[in-house]
């Protein structure tokens, strides 16, 4: 495949601008291939038998809901090669991510898998304006960490001069940026801020002394304000990247130049958003867990992989001309979900409401406890800041208003407590403790 002309806004125009109907047809075709491949994997063969599914029953993308889910634990339980659908001699690369508990997970790639991965990353980079004339510097860790090699191959696929700077040694990163004329940089957001700080200390003005133009950021949650600050400081446009090592790594989803949601490549994945408890699909636009089915993987196809990442699908068309759906910024992990009186509650929902009140800070503490006669209840402690009104009636009204808005959002009535600034507990890493579960389990 040849590189398109630099004036083209798309790296692969036909695939990127494919109509929704076109995407569904392509997905249906590829899902059938994927299911046939999965039938070579003992884990899926057993599941198919259990569910009474024959590969030939899966005909269209809508049939995906008949298929079994796959979890990270499943991958761990079949460490190291249990999910391979091809002989190991056909595989050319292995990536592994260590877990805090149990076995690590292993992801295998054939040459064709690596090519598809590089193409996906190249599409993303091209989408945010990277071109063969650019110099790309990757300050992600290499080795097993997929953002190193993932961006490396993608950037080379675009045709950029690519600098595998790897993580750390900020002075050297800055020297490379200046000496090599780096115009596109990949870094995690906190490291991008660090680079700027050190530039400042060294008297380097990024606008005057560097050619930096585009920054790709990911791997670490960050707010829109943080992004805007990084853009302002470094004089760049910063784009969010979403990767997941079990899928391949970077290249799964990426923001386009609209900076409004991350396009997820639907010719690579079937995208579902499900309720983390019932595993039923939620309506478009609603928050839930991202579930992905791979469509282009040979060595290790995965069906309905539960990413544990919470997001929602943004409705409507994107002005950039790509019909691949857009995911909202990742909004935490489904492991953070609270179930209270049978209702699913995500801390992010509470955060969103609290942000609207100028009288209170952004820190909060959710406490779940069991009360005699009342069952499980939830209280939300919020910090009063310096714009509180000096009278109890107003403070009471504030409490009531927060309670009312929270109830409308999460559908249970929490007990809201106003507390003074600086009194909410912090964990050892100085990170705010958000949820305390003191419920009695029967």
């Amino acid at each position, binding site marked *: 495949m040849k590189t398109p002309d630099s004036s083209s806004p798309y790296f692969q125009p036909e695939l990127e601008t494919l109509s929704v109907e076109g995407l569904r047809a392509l997905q249906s075709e590829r899902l059938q291939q994927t299911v046939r491949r999965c039938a070579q994997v003992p884990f899926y063969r057993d599941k198919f038998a259990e569910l009474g599914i024959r590969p030939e029953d899966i005909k269209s993308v809508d049939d995906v809901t008949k298929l079994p889910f796959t979890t990270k634990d499943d991958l761990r339980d079949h460490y190291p090669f249990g999910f391979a659908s091809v002989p190991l001699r056909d595989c050319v690369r292995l990536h592994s991510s260590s877990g805090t508990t149990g076995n690590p997970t292993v992801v295998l790639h054939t040459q064709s898998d690596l090519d598809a991965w590089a193409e996906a990353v190249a599409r993303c980079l091209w989408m945010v304006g990277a071109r063969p004339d650019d110099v790309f510097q990757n300050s992600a860790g290499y080795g097993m960490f997929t953002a190193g090699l993932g961006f490396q191959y993608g950037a080379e696929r675009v045709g950029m001069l690519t600098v595998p700077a790897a993580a750390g040694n900020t002075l050297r990163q800055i020297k490379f940026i200046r000496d090599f004329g780096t115009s596109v940089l990949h870094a995690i957001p906190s490291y991008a801020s660090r680079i700027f700080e050190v530039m400042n200390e060294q008297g380097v003005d990024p606008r005057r002394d560097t050619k930096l133009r585009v920054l790709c950021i990911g791997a670490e949650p960050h707010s829109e304000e943080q992004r805007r600050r990084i853009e302002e400081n470094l004089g760049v446009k910063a784009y969010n990247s979403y990767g997941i090592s079990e899928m391949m790594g970077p290249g799964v989803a990426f923001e386009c130049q609209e900076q409004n949601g991350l396009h997820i490549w639907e010719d690579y994945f079937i995208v579902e958003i499900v309720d983390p408890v019932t595993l039923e699909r939620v309506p478009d636009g609603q928050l839930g867990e991202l579930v992905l089915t791979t469509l282009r993987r040979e060595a290790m196809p995965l069906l309905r992989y539960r990413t544990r990442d919470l997001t929602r699908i943004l409705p409507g068309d994107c002005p950039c001309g790509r019909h691949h759906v857009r995911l909202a910024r990742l909004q935490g992990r489904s492991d953070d979900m609270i179930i209270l009186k049978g209702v699913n509650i995500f801390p992010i929902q509470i955060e969103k409401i609290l942000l609207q009140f100028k009288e209170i800070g952004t820190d909060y503490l959710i406490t779940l406890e069991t009360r005699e006669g009342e069952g499980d209840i939830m209280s939300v402690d919020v*910090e*009063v*800041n*310096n*714009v*509180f*009104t*000096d*009278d*109890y*009636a107003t*403070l009471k009204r504030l409490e009531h208003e927060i309670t009312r808005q929270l109830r409308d959002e999460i559908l249970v009535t929490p007990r809201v*407590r*106003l*507390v*003074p*600034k*600086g*009194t909410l507990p912090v964990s050892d890493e100085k990170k705010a403790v958000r949820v305390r579960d003191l419920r009695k389990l029967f």
Partner: protein
Amino acid sequence: MTIRQVSIFIENQSGTLQKVLELIKRSRIQIIASTLADTADYGIYRIICNEPERACLELKEAGVAVTISHVFAVELDNRPGGAADVVARFSEAGVGISYMYAFVIEGRGILIFRTDQTEEAEKVIASNGLHALSESELPMQY
């Protein structure tokens, strides 16, 4: 004529009151009058002091939730029922009082109260020949 009052949000169990008093002591701010009212979970500690802006800044810097509000300080007749008569004038005129407290300086009783109807309160004060203290009339040191 109103004076500035420093209002501090404190929680009953958390030791904020102790912290606040320590801070005020260390910054050598003089408290002229104060009151602490509490509800089940939290309280507002209200202070009339000699340097309200500085007090507010220092407390803010120490991470305390604090705000400045404007209150009336009306002099009372030194006789039984003095406060009742003053309050009656305001309620007759339909001026709502959100809270009040009293203290004595140099033998004079002073009633501090807060209302959202500042203009109406000014009228009541003028038409009844009451005296609302300005900050310059507060005792600066002992």
